[in-house]
């Protein structure tokens, strides 16, 4: 008791607490800011995002900038390779040619002085030569390769019978390229000689004024005269097997393919979220029933039912077939998202912060919008990103086997389907759409990988 008396309050002074506050060296980042930062530092994902933006811009702006009708056919320019703008020479309309006959003066195995009677154009190539004594006729061949090494003379165009005949007119499907014309002599028994004479001809693209107007290359025949050059419609990526512009079709095809690829996943992911949330929240018997049904839908053989539903919805005349494909994709593809969301909801419900929030009086709606949805959003976003390439694949696949969009609607898949028929002589018709499909799928896959890594908290600091 006495001891207490010995203390004087004045002897005491408050201890100054020297608190050393940890300086926060980095700015505080929210989950999404952090994810965004990590996504940006992943060069593959960033590049993919750039490619996707580029593809979307191509799909939206392409048909505005490149105003060529993707369904317009040009029979004169089918399966053109990618090229620079080409021109055509204006010539007189072609008139029938009687040909040339002359008396043979020399004997020999092959004709001599094979030459052109007039400049070779895509209208006509007129060959003349010095006939051979004792010949009964001549066979004319045309090739796009040099026949020299192994006597590969090419296409037999026709024969002219009679020793005096000394000319041939070729009007058969002439392209503005280089041809090798060969003339072979027929002997007395009308057998072909081994020897031949070859002439290399560079054919020039030419049209008559009337033809140019009829094809819509010029508005008026008075605007130009014979000998002028006119510019032809420009096909920077070439044309397909019906002469339709590849660039325009690729741009319109991008619209169709990306529309299906993006809209279908958006719809079925949304349906999956609603379905999965209901199953996860209500639980019990309803949950079991809903999930059992989802398992049934998963068990359906996907492509078979894609095709079945697609024909069940049918395509009327003049319709593109995009909508039935969209509906079929949505009907078949929602269950994985529903299962995922249900699992997430069941997991989050167990978390301490949800119980705490409930204890503080939070209502179900608040729980859903404050806790459940933000916490599942990352997983859903990743699912969505991976769903896009598989939808693009499905569209391409269906169009490829002829069950997709109806012609003349262009999609990358239908273009590849048409391109595969002319794959050997004109590979560009297959390669362009295939490259677009591959790039789009690749970009979405890499972006999905990046998103998954960026949104996964366990990956933090592991770069």
């Amino acid at each position, binding site marked *: 008791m006495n001891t207490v008396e010995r203390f004087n309050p004045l002897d005491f002074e408050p201890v100054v607490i020297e608190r050393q506050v940890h300086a926060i060296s980095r700015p505080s980042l929210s989950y999404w800011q952090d994810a965004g930062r990590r996504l940006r530092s992943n060069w593959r994902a960033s590049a993919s995002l750039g490619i996707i933006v580029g593809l979307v811009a191509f799909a939206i702006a392409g048909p505005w900038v490149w105003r060529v009708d993707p369904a317009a056919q040009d029979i004169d320019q089918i399966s053109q390779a990618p090229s620079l703008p080409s021109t055509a020479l204006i010539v007189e309309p072609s008139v029938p040619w009687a040909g040339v006959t002359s008396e043979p003066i020399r004997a020999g195995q092959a004709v001599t002085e094979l030459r052109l009677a007039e400049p070779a154009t895509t209208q006509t190539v007129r060959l003349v030569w010095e006939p051979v004594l004792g010949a009964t006729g001549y066979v004319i061949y045309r090739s796009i390769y040099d026949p020299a090494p192994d006597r590969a003379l090419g296409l037999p165009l026709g024969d002219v019978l009679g020793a005096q005949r000394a000319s041939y007119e070729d009007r058969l499907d002439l392209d503005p390229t280089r041809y090798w014309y060969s003339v072979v002599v027929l002997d007395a028994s009308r057998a072909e000689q081994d020897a031949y004479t070859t002439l290399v001809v560079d054919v020039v693209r030419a049209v008559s004024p009337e033809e140019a107007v009829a094809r819509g290359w010029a508005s008026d025949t008075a605007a130009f005269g014979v000998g002028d050059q006119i510019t032809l419609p420009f096909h920077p990526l070439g044309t397909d097997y019906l002469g339709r512009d590849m660039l325009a079709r690729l741009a319109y095809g991008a619209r169709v393919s990306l529309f299906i690829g993006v809209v279908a996943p958006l719809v079925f992911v949304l349906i999956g979220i609603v379905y999965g949330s209901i199953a996860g929240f209500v639980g019990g018997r309803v949950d079991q029933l809903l999930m059992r049904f989802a398992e049934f839908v998963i*068990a359906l053989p996907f492509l078979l039912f894609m095709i079945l539903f697609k024909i069940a919805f049918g395509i009327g005349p003049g319709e593109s077939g995009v909508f039935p494909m969209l509906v079929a994709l949505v009907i078949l593809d929602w269950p994985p998202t529903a299962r995922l969301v249900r699992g997430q909801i069941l997991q989050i419900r167990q978390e301490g912060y949800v119980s705490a929030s409930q204890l503080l009086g939070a209502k179900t709606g608040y729980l859903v919008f404050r806790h459940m949805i933000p916490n599942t959003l990352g997983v859903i976003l990743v699912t969505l990103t991976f769903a896009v390439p598989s939808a693009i*694949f499905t569209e391409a696949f269906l169009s490829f086997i002829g069950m997709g969009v109806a012609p003349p609607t262009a999609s990358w898949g239908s273009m*590849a389907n048409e391109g595969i028929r002319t794959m050997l002589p004109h590979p560009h018709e297959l390669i362009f759409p295939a490259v677009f499909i591959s790039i789009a799928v690749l970009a979405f896959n890499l972006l999905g990988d990046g998103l998954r890594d960026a949104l996964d908290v366990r990956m933090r600091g592991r770069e």
Partner: protein
Amino acid sequence: MLTYTLKRVVQGIVTVWFIATATFVAMHAVPGDPLANQRATTEQIRQNLQARYGLDRPLIEQYGIFIGNTLQGDFGISFTQANRRVNDIIFESFPVSATLGVLAVVFAAFGGVVWGALTAIYRNRLPDHIITFLVILGISVPSFVVAALGQLALVDINAWLGFSLLPVAGWGSVRHMIVPSMVLGLGTMAYLTRLMRSSMLEITGSDFIRTARAKGLPSTRIFLKHQLRNAILPVVTVLGPAIAAITTGGFVVELVFAIPGLGRSFVQSVQQLDYTVIMGTTVFYGAFLVFMVIVVDLLYGLIDPRVRLE
């Protein structure tokens, strides 16, 4: 184990019933008349045909007949190929598809394990980068492009060699099977390579590998017995879905390489609206897939004792 198997089989049968019902509903929602393509169109013939295919009955009765016949394994008679039973069509073309599919799965699984293990061994070195790049390419290029390019390459190779190394299309001998099954398995192989790589890397970092090293086991033994065996397990799990993916990819490969398999006959029957063939093929395919997945799941339980089958 037995109860689990039984449960799975019963579930599988219910699933097949669901597939059959969905097919029936979808086919009866198709606009148009299955007899519209028939040449003989007098009323009497039409009625006879309808009676033959049971199309004059009420829908619910048709459904009953369809399910009853399906239970007996009878899919009826083709609409377009005169007097051919759908069963015959399936049993002619299915072995072809199955051979192609099995070869593709073997190729994909083997390639996936080998390449995946290689990338893990050479982690972040040149072989890893090259294989990873090829894998990404394999996942992103559609199967029909791979098929077309494969065929194109084969044409060039044959032309360059001057004789036919491998046939470009068709079916019949082992030589016909090599290129199509490789093309078919390529996408799955890329996917499995990726899976194998990550599972190898996970295993390599685990404690028991370090223990094995510390014990002084030779590295080949560690690799074969400890790493590879454990890393293969996840690959086996996805084989079920992989088989499904390969059978669907088979459609394209069969079309491109002109192989008379089930996928090609399905596509043809859809184009000709051959109702019974479409329904029979779908139910058969669906049942096949469902039971393949069950078999793979059961096998997985046998391979990995840690997996408890409830």
